[in-house]
Structures are given as C-alpha cells and as structure tokens.
C-alpha cells in the first residue's frame, strides 16, 4: 500500500513527508536537527523530556508548542524549530534538567548546546533523569517487562515490580545500554551552580549562521 505524501513547512522550507511520520523524523530527513533526550530510534516516542518541542501553527495565528517526537505531520502544517518561543522553552528545560542532574552527560551536553553558563536553581544530584528509555527498551525490544515507573510527581522513580528482579529479566543489560546516566560525565563542574562551558561550541557553524546558540544540524549532532 502506498502511503500518502504530506506537504508541510518547516522553518519556512517546504518539505514532504510520508503520512504517519513524526515531525522529528521528517525534519531530520531534511537535515533540520531537533535535539532529543528521551527519543531513541526503535523505541516508541514518549514525549516526556519536552526538549524536542517545536512551534506549530495552522496559519490561523494560534500557535502551540508540541513535542516533535510524538506529533505526526499534517497537511499544511507550519512548523518552527528555532522560534524565540521554542528557544525560550528549550533553554529553560535544559536549565531545569541540568539543575536536577548536573552529573549526567546528556544534561551537561544539552546545557552546553543551549549556551547556558549559569543555573539559577539550587543544584541537586540526581543520576536518573526519568527519560524512561530503559523501561521502553526492556518492554519493547527485550520483552523483559522488568522495569517501570513507580511513585508520582517528584517522587517518581524507576524500579522493578515489587522492587525485586522478576524472572522475566534475563540480565540482558539493554537498560544499561540505553541509559544516559551511565555515560561518564564531564568532570569540569567544580563550583555548584556554575557550568564550565568548556565543551560549548565557540565558533559559529556555517550551516546555520543565524542560530543564537549552538546548532543542531546533522554535522554537529548532540
């Protein structure tokens, strides 16, 4: 069965995408990079980290933000991946993330990409960023069903049923493989609340000269 082709506009460029693809994938096919944390190819989109938000308008003046990893393309959609509203949201999300997990590499990287030099919130030291990658990996790819979220709100944590390793867990370590918290973090942070910023891109990239902070194109992925 041949799928319908959808025409949409991303960052003022007309692009085509197959019906049913998400904005994220459609944009990436055209080299428009959108940062992600909780998205991983092969796992179902989750829409939890919200770093991949884009501004979506139907041309009626009422724009809204939505995660590009979950939102499917629609005919005539107008998407902005770098609008001031998007940048403001991403910067704040990065700040919240790095404040809660300053020793997690993904959080550091995102903060560096956003050009954050100072965190205005008191720093915590969480090692889990609740991205849910391990849970989806276990459930969807390994058929383990050994992990899940427990608790609510700020008391949320990843655990096994009744906090005991179930028989369905085969110790495949798929969860560890996808976990961003297991990557050795940058050791540059010395003063609480300050980011060292040494890994922050200093020169502007030719591919997107107008960006106010680092770029997210394929040549320079996160």
């Amino acid at each position: 069965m041949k799928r319908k082709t959808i025409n949409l506009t991303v960052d003022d460029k007309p692009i085509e995408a197959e019906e049913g693809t998400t904005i994220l994938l459609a944009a990436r096919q055209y080299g428009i990079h959108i940062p992600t944390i909780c998205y991983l190819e092969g796992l179902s989109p989750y829409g939890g980290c919200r770093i991949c938000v884009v501004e979506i308008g139907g041309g009626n003046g009422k724009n809204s933000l939505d995660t590009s990893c979950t939102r499917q393309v629609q005919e005539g959609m107008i998407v902005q991946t770098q609008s001031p509203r998007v940048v403001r949201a991403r910067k704040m999300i990065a700040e919240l993330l790095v404040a809660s997990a300053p020793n997690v590499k993904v959080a550091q990287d995102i903060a560096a990409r956003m050009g954050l030099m100072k965190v205005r919130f008191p720093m915590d030291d969480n090692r889990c960023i609740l991205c849910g990658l391990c849970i989806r990996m276990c459930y969807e790819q390994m058929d383990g069903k050994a992990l899940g979220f427990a608790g609510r709100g700020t008391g949320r944590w990843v655990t096994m049923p009744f906090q005991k390793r179930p028989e369905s867990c085969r110790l495949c370590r798929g969860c560890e493989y996808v976990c961003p918290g297991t990557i050795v973090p940058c050791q540059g942070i010395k003063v609480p609340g300050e980011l060292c910023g040494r890994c922050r891109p200093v020169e502007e990239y030719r591919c997107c000269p107008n960006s106010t902070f680092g770029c997210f194109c394929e040549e320079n992925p996160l």
Partner: protein
Amino acid sequence: MNKIQSASDLYQWREQIRSRQNLEDGVVYVCGGTGCQALGCQKVKEAFEKELAKLKRGRKIVLKSTGCPGLCEKGPLVTLHPQDLFYQKVKPEDVPRIVAETILQGKVIEDLLLEDPADRRKILSSREVPFYRPQMRLLLGNNEFIDPTRIGDYVAMGGYQALAETLLRMKPEEVISEIKASGLRGRGGAGYPTGQKWENCRRAAGEPKYIVCNCDEGDPGAFMDRSLLEGNPHSILEGMLIGAYAIGASRGFIYVRHEYPLALQHAEIAISQAREAGLLGKNILGTGLEFDVETAQGGGAFVCGESTALIASIEGRTGEPWSKQIHTVAQGLWGKPTNINNVETWANVPLILQKGSQWFSTLGTDGSKGTKIFSLVGKVKNTGLVEVPMGTTLREIIYDIGGGPQDGKRIKAVQTGGPSGGCIPASLFHLPVDYESLSQAGSMMGSGGMIVMDEGTCMVDVAKYFVHFLEEESCGKCLPCREGLRRMGQILDGISEGKGDSETLPLLEELAAVVADASLCGLGKTAPNPVLSALRYFREEFEEHLVHQRCPAGVCHSLVRYSISPEACTGCGACQKICPAGAIKGEKEEPHHIEAELCTKCGSCMEVCPTRAVLVC
C-alpha cells in the same frame, strides 16, 4: 418491578408513584449530602426514624434522605412537607420537638428557622432563603426533594420523560443539532461545545463507541459534581442515555474518584435500579437502543481528570496523560471513539431536550449558555453550592448570595477554577461569569470552584499552596511540569521567607511561562495560572515580602512578628500561661512583652488575649 418497555409504561409507572405519594400525610426531607453527614445528619435521620416509628399507625409520614441542597454552612438541613418549613442546624435532640410540635400540631419552632441577616426576620420556607433567592437552580433544585437511592422519586418528578420523548420522536442527528443549538459547552472547565464533540464522536470511525461521565473532581474546595452525582444520579444516567443514542455508543462509564464513596455508591444503586427497570440494557423503551453503564473508580490522582489519563486509568494502566494530537473522540478507550463529558454537562442534557434548545439558549450570555454551579467557599458568610445563570457578576455571587465578608473584613480576591484557575481582584468583581471573561482576566471557569479571600489571606501563600498541590499531583511524566513546578514551589517558599532578589520575580515569571508552554497535558499547561494571576494583580504583595521582609496579611510565618500593644494590655497573664515557648515576659497587672528570639510564632497568645492586645505585623 416490571420492566418498562415503552413510553406508556413509563407514564403509567409515574402516575402510580404519584398517586401513592398523594396518600402520604407528610414528608420529612433530611439532607444526606457529604457536607451534612460531616455535621451529623445521619444521627438526625436515625432520631427521626425512632420518633416517627412511635407515631400512631394511621399517619403516614415518609422520611427521605436527600442529596445536597447547597447551603452547607447551615447543615444539617431538614425540610418538612406539606408544612413547607425549612429547619437549619438541626440536632438529634431537636427531633422529638419537631415531630411532636410541627408534624403533629403544625406549630413552627422558631429557633430552628433561618434568620435573614438583613432584617432579622425568621424565614419559613426554603424558597425565601436569601441564599437561594438570586439563584436559578435548574440542576440542583431537585436534589432537595429526591431520595437518590430511589428511582421512583426521580420518575415521579418527570424523570426519564426526556429520554422517552427523544427516543420516540427524534433522530440521533436531530438530538445533536438540538444540543448544538442550545449552545451548551463542556462544564469540566475547557468549555468545548458539547454538540460539536458529540458530532465528532458520532462521525469517528470505529465500533463500539464509548461515553464517559467524568466525576474525578479533584480541585480543592470544589464539590458540585459530587453533589450532583450523589443527589440526583438518575439525571446523569438519563443524560448519558440520550448521549448514547445521539452518538451511537453502546457502553458508558461513570468515572468516580476514590474520595467520593457516597457518590460511587449512589451511582451504582442508580445503575442497578435503571437496569432492573429496563432503562439500561437491551431494547430500551422498546426502541432497540442498547446501552449499559458501569462505574470505574479512580485511585486518588488529580491528573486522572484529564481525558487521556482518565482513559488510561479506566483501561487499568497508570493514570498518565499522553500526547493529545488525536482526540479522544476519535481514539479513546481501547482505541475506540470515546466521548467524555463532565457530570454537570450530562445533567444539563435531559433539561435541554425537555424544555428545548430555544429556552436554554435564552439563559446566559452570548458565548456561554445555561446555568453553572459554583462551590462558593472561603471567607464569605454563606458557603455552599450556588447555581446561577452564566453572566451573573462575581459581585452578585459573592455579596448577594454568599452574604459578603465574614467578621467585617474586606474581601480582596476570588480564586476561580481551582488550581488551574487564577485569582481575580475585587476591582474586577463587576465581571460577568462566563468562559471568555474569566480567561481574559487570567483565570478560568474550571469546573466551578470559587474560593473567596479577604485581607487576612496572603497571595504568596495562596500561590504557594496551589503550586505545592499541583507539584504533588503532577504525574511526573514530563520534565517541565515535574521539575518546573518543584522549582516554582522552591522559589515561592523562598519569597514567603523573604528570600530573593530583583531576579526572583522575573525568573518565576519566565519559568511559569515555560511550564505553561511546554508541558504535556492540561495540568501542567494551566498550573502556573494561580502564580501568574497573583503576580499580575498582587505584585506589590510579592515585592513587599522580598523588599521589606513583611507579609501584609500576617500569614507567612517567617516574616510575621508578634508584639503586644502596651496600651491595650491589661496584664492578665492569659498569654503568658498559654505560650509554649515561654517567650512572654512581664509582671502581673503590668503590660507584657514578647521576646522575639524565643517566640515560635504559633499565634496562641493572639487567640487567648481578651483585649486583643496581641498584634501581628
């Protein structure tokens, strides 16, 4: 009971019940709502049972435990028929008097009557109560006279009549266009046009279709959905039946939150009675309509009022929302089209079909039709449920119905729409209550909570309360809501302790804007409203905390200082005795003083002082 198989069966049944009711010598209605239960109405009811059993056999007095009539402040409430008397604050000890004097001799017991605060006149009938007079109680009015556990009471009041007429005379499309013409909008808070939603669901591909009644009312201080489902569950069922017919749904769910056991119980009783009467099941009223309802209970999560989280909860998954790009009317429960409406929306449906969309659309304002129930709580004289036509001004609700401020204080603001709504200052009390004007003022209709605040309320404290409430209730799935609300809570905690600088308020505003922008579901998107509206109208109060280290309302603990006015103090020593910290010093008959280092700011001294010499600043 025989099954009702046609409209004429229903008519006959109603006439039977009515003729039986005509033989009764009198009815005692005791409020059995949750509010009155807390005030001891169960004991009052038991006392009536005992006293009425002693009466002579010839007299047939019926005792009914009804739903909530709304005036919770004065409960337990007792209404007597045919005398048409309205007794308030009835205690079990009063019951023998009521039976002996009022029921048997027809005498009025003066001290149980409500007093009109304006002219100190005693009020006999419930119709004359100043709290009820400006109201238009289309949905709540029947609560007073219906025993929610008896289907007969509802049928006798003309219940299920609208259903019978709809099924016989109207096509489903006609029902939808009637609802559309009425202008009814969702009472859950967002105000989406109900008819439009129904049409979308009817047109959506997929069988079977489901309908859901959302009674997951979690706003602090709001209880209108509870009172409707508790007090008149059959009107909800009738609305759902009409909806099922219009949409083409074959199954329905009533989702009740865990904290509403009585509402759940009454809903279940109503369902089983309707099933027994043949009003649920196969071939309803002989028209071939097939529809059944079951209840589903929440686990006590506020977020489950959000439609996608509610669906997850009914399906048995964790109550977490997901991206709403495909609406639930197209893909809801088990991936099938699902129409979710609030309790109050469903309760409006039979009314519209009975009296016509023309009549309904004459009520209210241009954009918002019909009446709306508000739960009026906080610093007003009369708290309780208020039903008014849309477009009534806030002033009318707060001053005319609510009776104005308590103990001579000045009312400062009203918080509408629960934790997702905002605070509206007294200077905007001329605003008519409808969907548009409230959201323009930075608040929202929400489900209808209304919390009145006076000068003794600190807006920082209010914002802090709601943010901490939502922080606790956030499911934690998405980062802006989980982390953002936690950080907003931290900032507000800091402000209430006077900690912060010139960057604090802009940071709070920036954070609030992002949380509203980037969150996944309605909870996070509306969560900053209380903070943003408080900052919009009461910024100087926030600044006062930060700059002058002072809480103008005297609420924020760490900024409050207690002192004793030497002029007013008589040196009686009452405060000295009660002070747990031993912070009050002074000789007897001499003015006392408080040692600030020792004071724990518990406020006990202020409560006991007979001359009100303890001051807060």
